[in-house]
């Protein structure tokens, strides 16, 4: 009884509840036959949202106005550049990964330099940055699709004990992020900054350093996600990140992170990512047209939030 109450006070529980409902409704369509296939697909595609979502969550935790809009462009550039560099050679896989991490590092610094030097609100700074990154991606190879190295492509598309490798990678990254957030000083710091930057400064938190690290972290996760997604789908496309702009924000907020900053949680991101994938699958399965599909997606999102609501929004 009491443990149930504790469980229900967790904001992320609702996104999981919604996920389960949607899953059941979808599987019912085929009388249960599709359960395994659907779960695997959901895990695979949710994994990508989770990876970018975690980065976005760290940034959103920093407080009002903090959102990284350069995530899609970063994914695109990282995928394009890494695949071009690896040029289908298996021996270059690690180099490719390192380069994309390095790229994320540079983009994160770039983002924060803009925010800090020009005192631009992060939304605008990262938006400007994303245009520049997108241009760089176009300039590097004009959208030509280069195939990923064989081994990498196989790794990203196969699974271990029925769990997609991509999902395992995302799980490991979530684990690290969870420790970072819940157990370390850094996690406390970003949460403190999110609630009151001034107060954080006055308790001795190096605010700029912490925010810089956070933007770097977000860009690196987006980079890794771009690298994996390009390998998974057989090549980088110039528009491959665009889906993930709204997605990365949606999974964070539906997952129960306070948009006002200062409060975040990682299980919720998984729930929300699975949910976002399954909702579209469900509506596709039941054969709704695009218009109704969009409307229902919106209504379902709002319904989940309404049920999960009562989270004290702290202003």
């Amino acid at each position, binding site marked *: 009884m009491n443990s149930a109450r504790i469980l229900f006070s967790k904001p992320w529980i609702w996104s999981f509840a919604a996920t389960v409902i949607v899953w059941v409704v979808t599987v019912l369509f085929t009388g249960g036959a599709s359960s395994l296939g659907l779960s695997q697909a959901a895990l695979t595609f949710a994994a990508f949202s989770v990876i970018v979502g975690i980065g976005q969550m760290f940034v959103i935790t920093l407080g009002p106005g903090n959102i990284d809009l350069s995530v899609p462009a970063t994914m695109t550039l990282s995928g394009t550049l890494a695949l071009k560099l690896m040029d289908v050679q298996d021996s270059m896989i690690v180099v490719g990964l390192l380069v994309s991490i390095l790229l994320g590092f540079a983009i994160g610094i770039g983002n924060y330099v803009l925010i800090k030097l020009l005192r631009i609100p992060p939304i605008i700074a990262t938006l400007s940055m994303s245009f520049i990154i997108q241009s760089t991606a176009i300039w590097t190879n004009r959208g030509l699709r280069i195939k990923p190295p064989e081994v990498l492509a196989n790794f990203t598309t196969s699974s271990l004990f029925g769990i997609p490798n991509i999902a395992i990678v995302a799980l490991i990254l979530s684990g690290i992020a969870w420790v970072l957030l819940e*157990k370390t000083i850094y996690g406390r710091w970003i949460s403190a900054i999110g*609630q*009151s930057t001034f107060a954080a400064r*006055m*308790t*001795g938190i190096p605010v700029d*350093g912490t925010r810089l690290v956070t933007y770097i972290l977000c860009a690196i996760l987006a980079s890794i996600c771009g690298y994996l997604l390009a390998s998974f789908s057989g090549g980088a496309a110039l528009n491959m990140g665009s889906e993930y702009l709204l997605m990365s924000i949606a999974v964070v907020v539906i997952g129960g992170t306070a948009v006002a900053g200062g409060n975040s949680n990682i299980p919720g991101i998984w729930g929300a990512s699975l949910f976002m994938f399954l909702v579209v699958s469900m509506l596709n399965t039941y054969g709704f047209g695009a218009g109704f599909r969009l409307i229902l997606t919106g209504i379902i999102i709002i319904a989940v939030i309404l049920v999960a609501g009562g989270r004290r929004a702290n202003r």
Partner: protein
Amino acid sequence: MPGVCRTTNDVSRMNDVTARPEVVAARGIKVTFGAVKALDGADLVIHAGECVGLVGHNGAGKSTIVNVINGGLTPHAGDISYGGNVGQHGISAARANGVRCVFQELSLCPNLIVNENARIMHAELAGWNWRAKALALVERQLREIFPGHGIDCDSTVDDLSIAERQMVEIAISFAGLHDRPKLVILDEPTSSLDAGLAAQLMAYIRRFVGEGGSVLLISHILGEILSTSDRIVVMKDGRVVADRPASEFSTRTLVEAMGNVVREKEWLRSSDKRGGTAALSMPARRGHGLPFEAHRGEMIGLAGLGGHGQTEMLLDLYLSRNGNWWPARKGEIAFVAGDRSLNGTFPLWSILNNLSIASLGNLSSRSIVDQGRETSLGDGWKKRIEIRTPDMENRILSLSGGNQQKVLFARALATTAGIVLMDDPMRGVDVGTKQEVYEILRSEAANGRTFIWYSTEMDEIRLCDRVYVFREGSIVAELVGNEITEQNVLAASFSGGEAA
């Protein structure tokens, strides 16, 4: 302000006051927040033309009963009547009955101009020239309460100092376009005002009461309660434990009624610790005045009228010693905020997290926070300064204002910092706790900690080893040891200052 004389006809005034009509009566009020009984059958009746003083320890339930009277909080038991009529409750009902309230935490809209704030508080300010009307209203009232205030009513509240905001809020609450308010509730109105302004306010309260209005005055500065109120109500743990004419109380009996024992001040100033290199120093501010210097183990007071650059200097001292990009290797300096909501509390967090945030470095190994050590730190401080809460995992906002302030204190003292900066940290802290904190400060100073303490209360300034007096942003005088008297401080803050 201790030492203000009371008029002799107080007692006779008392008697005819109780015969006057009730403005507000709250009887048998019970309010609980989860396990906390904030009010446990409290009674409070206010008559027309009297000033009621309300005192009690932090978390006694003063602000809660204010919120009940004000209509913002519905009691779980008991009833409220306005002007003798039972049955109506709520913010609008209270306002319709002429109840106005100045809350403990400032509640103006910081983004609005002063007269726009008046519009928010006074719905009747409407029509084409409401701006002019509002401006006239606020200006008149400010002039009446705080003659010579110097506040520009065309400025945004953001641009005002904390004292000026408090003055504006008080003025807006006393103002009335058509009719004046019947009852004005003042929840610690002087916590950010310096002695002069506080005296002006107290004088105005007497005039207001004399003209038939009523005031409910909450304060931890017993002097002003004793000098200004007709009747004093003492609360303890959600109940009223004493309700008698003010003339029957003295500081001592009042403190005893609140449940504390008065300790004789036996503050022995330590010997002069100057000499050797300074632990902290700063050249003269804005190119004139005296330079600042602090030595190990010193307790330094920053005095002067409110808003004359003391807080700015504390912020500068702090920020100059604290990296914004890289964590300071060993925390050598800590800060206790006075403006809790601005630079003090983290509202989403538990009390424990709020307390431990500044000492995480010592509580963790390899950046991983050791939660066991954190909890024991929290428990230790909970006992040491009596944070009134059943559980340190509760949200910080569930604490009363004074208790929140204690947590901020504990946050700074729990660090290993050798220097502690305090920005008027005793705002809203009750007498008993103050004594305990003074005690702690003294022993910490003896252990070699340096305290730099801005205070608006003369009693606290007198506790310091050395005092810098501020005027117009720079230090105009330095007082050492026995030179620290109210007279000297006042003289330095008003005159040109011999050292300027």
